[in-house]
């Protein structure tokens, strides 16, 4: 009984070589793409690039922060 079951499983799996090969190739290609995209994200999100792009779009450095050390004036009447 066990031998018959084993034969069935082996014959089923043995024919899946092509499919496994294709899946392996697909996995590798997705891994490669994932890696490339991670590199791209790092390159695009570098501070130097973001600053350069922001300058091109007309952004400027923020003005100095002013801290008020006393209570804000109130209208008396």
């Amino acid at each position: 009984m066990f031998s018959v079951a084993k034969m069935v499983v082996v014959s089923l799996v043995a024919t899946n070589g092509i499919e496994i090969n294709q899946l392996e190739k697909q996995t590798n290609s997705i891994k490669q793409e994932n890696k490339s995209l991670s590199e791209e994200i790092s390159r695009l999100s570098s501070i130097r690039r973001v600053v350069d792009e922001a300058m091109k779009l007309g952004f400027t450095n923020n003005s100095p922060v002013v801290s008020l050390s006393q209570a804000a004036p109130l209208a008396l009447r």
Partner: protein
Amino acid sequence: MSSSRIKILIINFFLLSFIISVKLFYWQIISGEKLSAQAESQYQSLRVIPGSRGLIHTSDNFPIINNREIYNLFINQQRDYSLSGENLDRLVAILEPDETLKEKMKIEIKNKFENRDLAWSYLAKSIVKEQKQSIENLKIKGLDFESEEKRDYPEASMSAHLLGFVGKNSIGSNQGYFGLEGYYDRELRSRSGTIEMEKDAFGISIPIGKTVENQAIVGRDLYLYLDRGIQFMVEEKLKLALTKYGAKAGLVVIIDPKTGGLISSASFPNYDPGNYSSTDRMLFPDPVVSQTFEPGSVFKVLVMASALNEGVIKVDEQCSQCFGPRVIGEYTVRTWDDKYHPNSTMTEILQHSDNIGMVYVAEKLGRQKLYRDLNNFGIGQLTNVDLTGEINIPLRSPEKWADIDLATISFGQGVAVTPIEMVSAVGAIANGGKLLEPHAVNKITDSEKTMEIRPKIIRQPITETTAKVMTELMVSATQYGEAKWAAPKGYRIAGKTGTAQIPIAGHYDSQKTIASFVGFAPADNPKFVMLVSLTEPTSSPWGSETAAPLWFDIAKEIFKIRGILPS
């Protein structure tokens, strides 16, 4: 059957057996290995699984060092290969952007294609994915690519000294040099793995066949305390300051006093780690850990803290010798501006950065106690920061100190420290008297576990009470000292300026100085300790006019970035 015919048959039989035995001997013994290998190559496939070197991330999880796939292009002359004149022009256009070098490259490639003696030869190394795709589109026969990983620096030369670089060692393997790459080379290093599988006649893997797998070892990733935003800002400001003050070199180190974590570490001139081979080797060591300097007046805070901790002086005690220059042996000790402040208190001595006052403090402390207390602050010792190339210059034994040595050490001359040593020692004042080991790496991870590097207290050189008193003295030195004009309003900053003369050829050069400022903020709950040091500024030799404004300028930005409000 006649006996002669039987004999012939027997002889033939033995002859045949002998031939078969010889052939079997040849197949099994002489060519056995070769034939087994040939057979294996027919039914077994070997796949190499590359192991990637570990990445290095900043505190915002950004990979400041990444791995990038690059390709080497070669002609595989074991295959059919050919190159038309038109394709040669296109190939060179892809590989060589420099017009002046194109002709030379064309000749080289042509020669390689015509040389039939080589099995294979490289046409170009380290080409990127886009170039590879363009070359593949040309469909040139016989060209092949091999891929390898190369370190990629998305933030270019940011933190170059801190990070180090990866080069080749004597056996041609990748090895980290300098900075973190050097220190953590074992953790970051990877090893390629293999999978051997049985395949069928069409080269397709047999799922139920024998599989032998050697797993690839992926390098561990490092996560730093380094704040990328602050590091960028610091480098920008330091670059501008070097031009503004005409300084030859400069550095900024910022640590978190509660963890010892390196928030920022910048020094110029630096180099591009992606192109280290074309850099002057002298630039590779990180000045923050590999260069010493005479600290000058910034050192006074350590001497004063020691004296207060030993109880040999009191804050409101008046200096009885501050009325004029001091003659010690054959030397005369003066103040930096030759102005004297009789009966100065300890607070005023720091405010005026009074050398005579510091000699008074050191003499009260004595050689043995000063030596012991400075050692307790880590002066003369390695901090054990996790960076390659840290050096230390041990303090000379106090028995060998002449009277003038005790005097000069009190104001930071005649003693040499590394920037990391100095900032760590001041960090102890900011951290309630506890000296921490500085660290660049916060945690190390791999696919299975994360190892956190916890803050490590080395010792407590001063009490918490002394640390509080010393903080007030440093706040007062910032508010009323020489650099008060540059200090941001509304913040309590504990700091001290320094202008040290540089020893050159056995004497101190009066024109060349190292200008520095060390301090921490906010004074009541310090979030950072920072040292700024500028080498040979030409616009002004004084720390109060060069390093201090830069320190305050950087501090103002950190207040904004970290949301630190005025007190």
